[in-house]
């Protein structure tokens, strides 16, 4: 037994655990097990959205696993997942990135039968349908890249094969953020982004794969273009979309483009911009500075995204078991509650309920008016008594997704067009 255990150690964990591991491997088997899981270190990277120190502290407390987190921006996350397989054990990436990263072979498929709460994972990530009656939105819907055909499968399959690429962790529906105090009238459509009324006061994000989606939402809402699939445009559709936005740019519609979370917050809070593409926590950040800001639900629907954790292909044995243990813990509720109290959704909403107060659950998930103050897990007040969440309940919001973040077949063409647009 001890020899098997010894073999299972990767070189790295041996170095890390050092003397303790050596000592343990000479002891009796059951003892060895206990020692090992305590000494395991998992290295996780992802965007700042979900790489939270609180999670690392809590997992150490509950499971004894040490989680080393690295937070990067969206592009760097893709870069690392695709090019530096030795630098991580757990990759926390977005589903649409999966399409790019999976073929590189740096991640391994996960056995769904080892995921305790698999049956409770939201339908969006398994069948693509929120409720049995829902229609599937355009773009790279998570379930389309969520499964492969076997333990070492390389091609995505459209059914619940039992082998998952990523375990969903966190997702949300994105829309435009506005400054209601500077606009002073209701905003109901994506077309408002190009409304000349906001000339020099609009912004979109300079991350091509997401920005193009927001552009498409606008062009479709204007009635200028009807897309076959906004998440997988043809060259003509791409050309038309950029033509409309290039003209707007030349007319001075945009104040700036933003690439990082902080930039979007600063543009909005300083009043440089009154309407722009935005992410949910950025709205919270603007509000916490005492500046009014609304995550405006629009009649054409939301652009949605989802993140998930993948396991490095290098993991095996003890560490792989620890990774499964960590993932099962992640879905068991505490993290879900922590994330939902910031305005995201958890992959297994029902387990999170136990970790939220009834009022919090009502406000964040059911779209009910808050009975008292709603605070973030960090103690900032986000809403007062009587407030309701922008966009309403989970089913109202996630049920109105028009499109998922995606990677198109014509991605390279689109990226070149994006460069042209920026230089125009």
């Amino acid at each position, binding site marked *: 037994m001890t020899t098997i255990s010894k073999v299972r150690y990767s070189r790295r964990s041996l170095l890390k655990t050092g003397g303790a591991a050596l000592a343990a491997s000479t002891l009796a088997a059951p003892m060895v097990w206990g020692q090992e899981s305590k000494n395991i270190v998992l290295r996780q990277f992802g965007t700042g959205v979900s790489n939270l120190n609180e999670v690392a502290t809590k997992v150490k407390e509950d499971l004894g696993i040490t989680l080393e987190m690295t937070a990067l921006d969206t*592009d*760097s996350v*893709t*870069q690392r997942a*695709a*090019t530096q397989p030795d630098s991580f054990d757990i990759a926390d990436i977005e589903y649409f990135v999966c*399409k*790019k*990263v999976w*073929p*590189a072979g740096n991640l391994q498929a996960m056995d769904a039968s080892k995921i305790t709460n698999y049956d409770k994972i939201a339908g969006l990530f398994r069948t693509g349908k929120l409720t049995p009656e829902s229609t599937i939105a355009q773009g790279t819907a998570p379930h389309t890249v969520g499964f492969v055909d076997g333990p070492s499968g390389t091609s995505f399959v459209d059914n619940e094969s039992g082998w998952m690429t990523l375990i969903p962790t966190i997702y949300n529906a994105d829309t435009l953020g506005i400054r209601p105090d500077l606009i002073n009238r209701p905003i109901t459509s994506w077309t408002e982004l190009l409304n000349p009324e906001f000339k*020099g006061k609009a*912004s979109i994000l*300079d991350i*091509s794969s997401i920005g193009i989606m927001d552009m498409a939402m606008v062009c479709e809402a204007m009635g200028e273009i009807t897309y076959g699939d906004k998440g997988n445009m043809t060259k003509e559709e791409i050309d038309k979309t950029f033509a409309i936005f290039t003209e707007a*740019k030349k007319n001075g519609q*945009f*104040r*700036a*483009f*933003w*690439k990082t979370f902080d930039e979007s917050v*600063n543009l909005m809070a*300083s*009043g*440089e911009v009154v309407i722009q593409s935005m992410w949910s926590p950025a709205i919270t950040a603007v509000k916490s500075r005492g500046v009014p800001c609304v995550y405006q639900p629009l009649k054409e629907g939301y652009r949605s995204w989802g993140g998930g954790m993948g396991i490095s292909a290098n993991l095996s044995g003890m560490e792989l078991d620890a990774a499964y243990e960590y993932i099962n813990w992640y879905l068991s509720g505490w993290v879900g509650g922590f994330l939902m109290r910031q305005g995201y959704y958890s992959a297994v909403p029902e387990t999170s309920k136990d970790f939220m107060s009834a009022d919090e659950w009502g406000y964040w998930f059911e779209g009910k008016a808050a009975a008292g103050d709603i605070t973030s897990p960090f103690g900032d007040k986000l809403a007062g008594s009587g407030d309701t969440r922008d966009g309403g309940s989970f089913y109202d919001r996630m049920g109105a997704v028009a499109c998922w973040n995606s*990677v198109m077949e014509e*991605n*390279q063409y689109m*990226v*070149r067009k*994006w*460069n*042209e647009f*920026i*230089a*125009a």
Partner: protein
Amino acid sequence: MTKQITAWLQAAPIAIVLLGFLVAPIIMIAIVSFWGATEYSIYPAFELDNYVFLFQSSVTYTVFLNTFKYAAITWAFTLTIGFTVAYFLAFEVRNVKWQTALFLICTIPFWTSNIIRMISWIPFLGRNGLANSTLISWGVIDEPLEWLLFSDFAVILAFVHLYTLFMVVPIFNSMMRIDRSLLEAAQDSGASAAQTLWNVIIPLCKPGIMIGTIFVVTLVMGDFITVRFMSGSQSANVGRLISNDISLLQYPSASATAIVLLCTVLIVIVMLLRLVDIRKEL
């Protein structure tokens, strides 16, 4: 013989450092620029696709033109300001102590990072920033000036602010080497102040001007972060093109652009060096 060996040994450390950290990476970039790329990986090959695309795309020309524009305008401003400051320090301030003190004051901004100096312009120039609110309260303007921030104006302002010292230092250095008796001689021969400046001081400052020019031009042409922040991502230069490619994992295409940029900058420097033989004049 032993003397020669000693000389080689003395030159060896810097040569090794340069070979390892400058020449080798550039060779690597040159090699990768011929490779191919997919969405998520790069593969060794020898293909000209990256260059063909680069030279066929209208974006390349727009962006290179824009880069030259930034370099030229920034150069003109930094030269004028840098020369004036250096002239003041070298000829108007007579006391060596004061010269040193004032020169040190010029370097104070360099105690903070480049990025911080640049970003601090953003709240200053913004729509509700200090500049606009001051101008409005003075009654100079009624509406905030939109072009102050996120425009070419802002980009060039930041460049000039960041890089003027690179002009001041070498020009000041050249001016301090000028033999003061030459200026007296010019005066005695009846030259006006302007004539002295044009016929004596400027020619003798050429090496300083040239070194400053090389600094400023290469810094501006290689920049990407200043352009991104100060134009609010709305303008592009070659550096941003490269950084976009890198973030999208298109390393070969980024390398090809980098090689073209490197060649362009080298050509510019060679042309500049044709104008002044720095070695001879130092």
